[in-house]
């Protein structure tokens, strides 16, 4: 399995580097003594240090040191060990693939030997999102906030930007179906035809998913419509590199006409684990309507604001892995962060549970991208809660605290899961899912300031 592959991998790939014999001589090298000392203690702090060393080595192109550290990591990591070991094995794989790549810039992300990604069925995906409250937390908080915000409206239009293939919506549809209003509230959900190339991957197109939602809504007597907004262009398959021209194109298509904003509808923009795929490097954009230098992420938020939604819900992972982070610090932050779901699984699933392994390998896929790539190919640009709040404020949004009912619902949800999951509410009104006290996922809600704000493109 992975262990075997891993055992073989470092040698042939790294042999393409300078000195293959160095591998076997690692022990005798100067730093070897330090490294072997590490082997005796396999705790997370040690692995973190190793990763830091490896990251620094790669940053400074010190191939020798990188090889040595990888050798040590190879002995430490294990795909079926404790969370730290398992995590380390994914990191090692990512580091190896990075180190062995000759010209990273010219290879597409998908073509770099990423194994065939597993495609799930909708039913499997439904189980997947409920394995741990990682996604369900965001779903619950957002849905409740949405219901609060659209109260009184006859029609709701939700622009759904997420990676979970509409798993969020059955509970919302169900909640709408339960409300005894007549005439019933009409719901319309729009998704983009493009989706970031990241797991979880589904084996049916989004249109099919939408069809199922339509049927479900019919079953619950909720008037429902599902739209797929074509945001095609240069990208036809998920497999190609997402280039900046694509983002330009994407942003140019996010306007009220294409999104089909109607004035009699309450527009909600739901951004779930999606914002992090928009590049956050500051570049001067071709779009001349934006003054100054902004990143795609900022422009996107501005566009959203111009749609005048009555609510924008953002859920994402609380970790800083954006454009500004160097490799070594990124590796360490990523390791400390990804430890959270790994540890969560450890508490209630056996070491060889297929669900756990699948989930972990999806995270491994992310790690591979975060650690193994740079520039445009590094699509996973996580942003912490604090930075996002500042970004939203800069884009002209004000935060809408979650209501008491929402907080209660989320708490009740977490009560039903393992006891390590908790929640905290920060001073800005955001909710943060915590595992053993560590921040995992945050959820927030915003509304844009008055529309005139955006027309002037000024910051309040």
């Amino acid at each position, binding site marked *: 399995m992975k262990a075997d592959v891993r055992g073989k991998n470092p040698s042939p790939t790294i042999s393409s580097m300078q000195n293959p014999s160095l591998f076997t001589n690692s022990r005798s090298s100067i730093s070897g003594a330090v490294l072997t000392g590490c082997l005796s203690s396999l705790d997370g702090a040690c692995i973190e240090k190793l990763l830091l060393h490896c990251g620094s080595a790669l940053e400074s192109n010190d191939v020798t040191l990188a090889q040595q550290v990888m050798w040590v990591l190879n002995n430490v990591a294990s795909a079926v060990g404790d969370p730290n070991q398992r995590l380390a094995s994914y990191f090692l794989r990512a580091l190896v693939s990075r180190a062995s790549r000759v010209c990273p810039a010219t290879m597409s992300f998908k073509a770099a030997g990423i194994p065939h990604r*597993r495609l799930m069925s909708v039913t499997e995906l439904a189980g997947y999102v409920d394995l741990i409250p990682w996604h369900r937390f965001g779903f619950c908080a957002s849905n409740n906030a949405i219901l609060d915000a659209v109260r009184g409206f006859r029609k709701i239009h939700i622009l759904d930007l997420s990676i979970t293939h509409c798993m969020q919506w059955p509970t919302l549809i169900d909640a709408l179906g339960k409300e005894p209003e007549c005439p019933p509230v009409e719901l319309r959900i729009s998704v983009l035809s493009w989706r970031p190339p990241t797991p979880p991957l589904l084996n049916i197109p989004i249109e*099919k998913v939408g069809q199922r939602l339509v049927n479900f809504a019919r079953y619950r007597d909720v008037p429902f419509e599902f739209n797929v907004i074509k945001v095609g262009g240069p990208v036809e398959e998920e497999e190609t590199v997402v280039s900046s021209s694509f983002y330009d194109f994407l942003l140019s298509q996010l306007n009220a006409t294409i999104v089909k904003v109607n004035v009699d509808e309450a527009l909600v923009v739901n951004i779930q684990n999606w914002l992090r795929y928009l590049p956050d490097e500051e570049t001067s954009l071709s779009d001349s309507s934006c003054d100054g230098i902004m990143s795609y992420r900022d422009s996107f938020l501005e566009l959203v604001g111009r749609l005048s939604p009555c609510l924008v819900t953002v859920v994402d992972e609380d970790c800083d892995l954006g454009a500004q982070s160097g490799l070594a610090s990124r590796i360490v932050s990523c390791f400390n962060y990804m430890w959270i779901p790994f540890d969560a699984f450890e508490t209630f699933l056996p070491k060889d549970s297929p669900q756990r392994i699948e989930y972990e390998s999806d995270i491994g896929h992310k790690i591979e991208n975060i650690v193994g790539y740079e520039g445009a190919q590094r699509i996973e640009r996580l942003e912490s809660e604090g930075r996002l709040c500042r970004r939203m404020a800069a884009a002209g949004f004000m935060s809408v605290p979650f209501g008491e009912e929402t907080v209660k619902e989320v708490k009740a*949800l977490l009560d039903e899961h393992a006891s390590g999951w908790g929640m905290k509410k920060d001073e800005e009104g955001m909710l943060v899912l915590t595992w053993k006290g560590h921040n995992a996922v945050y959820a927030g809600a915003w509304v844009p300031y008055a529309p005139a704000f955006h027309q002037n493109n000024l910051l309040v």
Partner: protein
Amino acid sequence: MVEMEISSPTRNGAKSEQLAEAAPPVKRRRNLPGMPDPDSEVIALSPKTLLATNRFVCEICSKGFQRDQNLQLHRRGHNLPWKLRQRTSKEVRKRVYVCPEATCVHHEPTRALGDLTGIKKHFCRKHGEKKYKCERCSKKYAVQSDCKAHMKTCGSREYRCDCGTLFSRRDSFITHRAFCDALALEISRPQPDIKGGGDVEPSPPPPAASSPPQPPLTPSTLVLSPVLSIQSSAGLPENHQTIHLQPPPSTAPTTTAAAVPSSSSASSSHIPPNGGVMPIMLNASTPPAFSSPAISLSLSSLFQSPSQNPPRSHYAAAHQPALSATALLQKAAQMGSTSSKSSLLHGLWLSGPTPSDSPTPDNDCIKLESSSLASGLGLSPGASGFTELMISPPTTLDFLGLGMPAGEAPSDGFSAFFSSIGGRLHHMPPPAAPFAPVRAAGDTWDEAQDRKPSML
């Protein structure tokens, strides 16, 4: 008779007030909660008083009691003289209580609750803190009796989907149910987005049939629509079909099932309606009685796709008597060893230009191509799936005598298939993307058949 006309209700919870007069009921009736008897006395208590545990106090020894009856029992023990034993006679008027919480709907005298215990519980439930917790599921309650009542049923409440999976949490149940195949509604396929090209309808005036609900069809739907159009006469329910059905135009209104392309004349054949035959594209909730003619129909219809789609090669339906499904398939394979077959594949999976070589039948490869074709169509028995062209019950395959086990590496069949075509396909995406669904789906279906996802 509860009359809601009130003479002069004051809105700030005065000590007591009179509601409008009405004839007192002859016998004791229960009023609807929150719609009190108009001539009842409205009492507004402060939260402290409401929740006070001992509201009834003995005047002799100042002992407090929760209930009036208990107080009376206690007073008997004091051996009071007769006069004092009687309670101050005051005409006992029915009392209703308002909720002290100002924002509450029951704060209005018109919505007062008639029972003191009731108002206490209401106040605690709605405006109070949840102090009582169920041990099993950690649900919290403000009223102890609620909690006790819950504990009786807790744990026994499980959500069961029609597919048999059990869930302990409602949200996971709802999410599963929304996407579960067992959802007992017909699921029709929405149209994927289109690439240019016209209809598959063979005749010169492309019938608007497939068009109205969806404008240009993707190749995959091009594949489908003929089948569906043929099936329409079978009386398929229309409302769920996003692929609209209509009989092909009258150019060749033959009722033959055959549609083997043998000449270049374009025509379509009207396949006789088959009761219970649903397009294979539709999903498992459709009746399982599914006969192979449907598949052959689809194949044959595919080959009917003529000049509407300029890049495609010409096929035509022959005016032949109905052939057996196996024969049809073989003929299709025969014809399809050419670029026409690659067009079929294009129709099935790809979008893009098709080579326009002239057909050269290749009898040697019939068997291989038949099975490849079948696998290309994704006929895996037992799959209760969603994807188009991938659904058929085992009987179909057996009927066709393809003898292909379920879900057996369809994409491998593809590779063989393509190689048999000799690489004439111009547009051949790497195996990773479009065919991955085939393979992976096949795998997952086999598992998904009788798999109950293990929930937390």
